[in-house]
């Protein structure tokens, strides 16, 4: 990976004849070598990064934590207590904390890749990555439900809410099945993907638009004003993205915990 291939998608695509707005095609990056594209490299890089940081945090395991260990314990404690324990219940939650913490760190780091210079591409703005994670979560909560209730018992548990009987079941059961089994993973994946996609598209739009207005359009006062405002908006959207990226990682983990908790719940 030379710097040129990394920089290629970041450099403005100057167009001589008029401004071409960015679109989904800007996310189809050329492969770096063979069939390996930038998001794949970023995914692997994120796992290496997370491993290195958490290993450094846990290596000493002192009773009185240093700064790094304290940060790690704070993040882990937040995921363990406020996400896992409150949503899964205190009986079973310990088994799921490793998965939830890995999920949170993985999504968070991959999202923040969208704002780090030279990387500047959130892996999850390619839909396939998000589909993979959502499929993992889907397998987890359905598997856990089947393990707890048995196959038919789980279907009954997930399709028949409490206090419904008689003719209403004809209407409720297909709806519940549809929403709990089929729609959940799709919305989970699409929420993450489209948030990253839309945010990154906005950043591209303001960067390219500002560049075009300042350097390529005719230098009227309006154009210069628009270009400067466009860059101001670029910084504003960047700070908003910082918040959105954290929020998406949090929400993905929270929803996973809630689905697992729902599948594990006793007969209601």
């Amino acid at each position, binding site marked *: 990976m030379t710097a040129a291939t990394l920089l290629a998608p970041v450099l403005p695509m100057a167009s001589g004849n008029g401004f071409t707005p960015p679109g989904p095609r800007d996310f189809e990056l050329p492969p770096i070598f063979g069939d390996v594209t930038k998001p794949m490299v970023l995914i692997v890089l994120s796992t290496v990064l997370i491993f290195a940081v958490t290993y450094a945090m846990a290596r000493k395991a002192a009773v009185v934590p240093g700064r790094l260990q304290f940060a790690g314990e704070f993040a882990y404690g937040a995921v363990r207590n406020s996400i896992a324990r409150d949503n899964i219940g205190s009986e079973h939650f310990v088994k799921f904390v490793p998965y939830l913490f890995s999920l949170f760190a993985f999504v968070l780091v991959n999202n923040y890749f969208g704002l780090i210079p030279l990387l500047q591409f959130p892996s999850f703005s390619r839909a396939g990555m998000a589909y993979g994670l959502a499929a993992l979560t889907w397998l987890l909560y359905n598997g856990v439900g089947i393990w707890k209730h048995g196959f038919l018992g789980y279907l009954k548990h997930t399709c028949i809410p409490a206090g419904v009987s008689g003719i209403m079941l004809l209407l409720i059961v297909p709806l519940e099945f549809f929403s709990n089994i089929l729609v959940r993973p799709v919305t989970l994946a*699409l*929420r993450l993907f*489209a*948030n990253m*996609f*839309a945010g990154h598209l906005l950043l591209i739009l303001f960067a390219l638009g500002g560049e075009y207005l300042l350097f390529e359009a005719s230098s009227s006062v309006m154009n210069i004003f628009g270009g400067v405002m466009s860059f101001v908006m670029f910084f504003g959207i960047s700070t908003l993205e910082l918040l959105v990226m954290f*929020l998406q990682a949090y*929400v993905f983990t*929270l*929803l996973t915990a809630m689905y697992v908790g729902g599948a594990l719940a006793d007969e209601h």
Partner: protein
Amino acid sequence: MLGYGVATIGPGIAVGLIFAAYINGVARQPEAQGRLQTIAILGFALAEALAIIGIALAFAL
């Protein structure tokens, strides 16, 4: 693209209502903030999903 602009009205109102309720709740019971925050963020994400699906479809279709 124009349709997407119209489609954001609904989720925008929804997110506003959710946070209005959250602010109300915290104003009435400050000690309940932790529990309310989780619910508020969850509701925000769920309402936002509609706008997000809208923007995905605006490019897909």
